[in-house]
């Protein structure tokens, strides 16, 4: 009998490959394990397969080969209701926020609960009182308490991304996938946005898999790092091991980190 059992494996990826219909090979034979409560950051050039990897985990993209487990339940091959049940545990935050632009802020937040909502009321944008309360709470947490009725596209980029985080909260997920969550935001807002995601990781114990560009952010928020290059996992380590030499290895010899954050 083992004396100590480490945190459970939240995501297990085995031999994952993705070839898009045009013949573009986005991912080649990825093996990866993400433990519960980790803040895993995925780095790599644009086009290195970061987005595809994240989208394979919740099956927005169907892998060409390989298997993925979410808390020991296989999501590759899951269909219909089972796939939706697994997706409910995985909230996603997108670079372009992907709000329903013509819906109100509140309706956008509430749409996070669609996975458990009853079909008919949800089609008429009706939600249980409990979820509405949660939605207001979530908006309060991201500092948007006073604008629930505003149309989503009337908000600034930073505000829209915070609505997206509130939407993710309403999903009551165990895992958060964040695909370049701050790449479309003003640099001044990036840390404040990342801190919201960090809070979910630290306070709620949510597992986060996040792709990032900015070295500053990578070193500040990651508990572990993996690097992709041309669809292959080329490096894995702790944030403090992410030095200039590794950076060149991952991004190519022409690359230079944008800041002095790197020793």
């Amino acid at each position, binding site marked *: 009998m083992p004396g100590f059992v480490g945190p459970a494996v939240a995501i297990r990826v085995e031999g994952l490959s993705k070839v898009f*219909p045009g013949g573009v090979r986005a991912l080649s034979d990825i093996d990866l394990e993400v433990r519960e409560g980790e803040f895993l950051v995925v780095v790599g050039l644009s086009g290195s397969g970061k987005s595809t990897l994240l*989208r394979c985990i*919740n099956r*927005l993209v*169907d892998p*060409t*080969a390989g*298997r993925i487990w979410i808390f020991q339940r296989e999501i*590759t*091959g899951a269909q219909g209701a089972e796939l*939706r*049940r*697994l*997706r*409910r545990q*995985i*909230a*996603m935050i*997108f670079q*372009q*926020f*992907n*709000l*329903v*632009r*013509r*819906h109100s802020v509140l309706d956008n937040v509430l*749409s*996070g*609960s*669609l*996975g*458990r*909502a009853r*079909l008919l009321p*949800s*089609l008429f944008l009706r939600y249980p009182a409990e979820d509405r309360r949660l939605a207001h709470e979530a908006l309060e947490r991201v500092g948007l308490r006073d604008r629930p009725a505003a149309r989503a596209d009337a908000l600034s980029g930073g505000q829209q991304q915070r609505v*997206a985080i509130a*939407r993710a909260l309403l*999903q009551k997920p165990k895992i958060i*996938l964040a695909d370049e969550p701050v790449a479309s935001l003003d640099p001044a807002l990036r840390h404040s946005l990342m801190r919201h995601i960090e809070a979910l990781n630290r306070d709620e114990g949510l597992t986060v898999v996040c792709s990032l560009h900015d070295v500053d952010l990578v070193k500040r928020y990651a508990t572990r790092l993996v690097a992709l290059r041309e669809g292959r996992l080329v490096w894995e380590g702790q944030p403090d091991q992410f030095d200039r030499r590794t950076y060149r290895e991952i991004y190519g010899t022409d690359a230079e980190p944008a800041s002095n954050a790197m020793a």
Partner: protein
Amino acid sequence: MPRGIELSTRDDHWAKSMARLKSVAVDAVLLTGAGLMIELLVVAFSGRRSPAGMLLGAEDILDLLHYAWITAGAVVLAILWNLLSGWLGASPGRALVRGIPERERDIPWTHTLRGWFTILFIELTFFTGWLITEVDLPTFLTKFSKASDIVRGLVHPSGAVLHQGVLLLVQTIFLAFMATAFAIPAAFAISFLAARNLTRGSALSRLLYTATRTVMNLVRAVEPLVWALIFISWVGIGPFAGVLALWVHSVAALTKLYSEQIESIDPGPVEAIMATGASTLQVIRYGVVPQVIPPFLSFTIYRWDINVRMSTIIGFVGGGGIGYILKPRVDLGEWGEVGTLVLLIAVTVWLMDIVSARIRERIV
């Protein structure tokens, strides 16, 4: 390895062969067209005469062409071009079906056989069209006087049919409106089946997509006039037959416009809603519908506008509306009364046009 994966590679292989076959077929059609047009032009300018001694007209020449031989030759050429595409450059069929291959993207069209073939094809079509439609510029420019009676009548409208004309005009507008209103729910429902981006999921949905597209294209290909004839024998002469005829045509036309709009939506919100674990209906309601409502409204108003214009013609055969009294006056040569009615239609269409353009501007 999950079972779906083996299937997908086999599908891939299958899809590739199908695409190759398709490009050969498209090439064969294009080359056949070009070959036939060349023969037609050669015969037309060779000075051949019919037994009666007249120069051969385009219709006579169409009877003389060697269809089988040219088609056979075109098929051979198409296969050759596709086989030798490394050497001759991608064929037009290949470019249309699978896109221009990577290594030829940067070659200017003047340096490709495909480019020259395209130009030749367009020129051939133009000159063949000139012959087949019997374009006759001299007559057009010199014989205006024959039509002057009609034009004089049109600009001297008579007041005799004004009252009845206005009444039937009102009927026309409502007829068009009812046809559009009935078309909205049908087209809305069908358009989701006819949108490629929503029907990739399963074999069944792809089949439904193809079936819907095919049926709608067929329905749209049949003129509203023909639908009017069908419905007149079904429900009798009168505006209701016109409503039904325009309805059928509007459903098909709106389905096409709606579904193209659905295909061009931003996939981002769809992904976001899918990621919450929402079901297909919820994804459509949240990810698709909010994005397409404004353009749908705009298309629908435009369709009403078109239906007003079309209902005039529908009236010619008994489908109600102002066309119903226009036809006999045209037949009798009452050009003054025709003028009144045409003027009424013109003013209405003009007003509808302005109003619908304004509303559409505001919506989008």
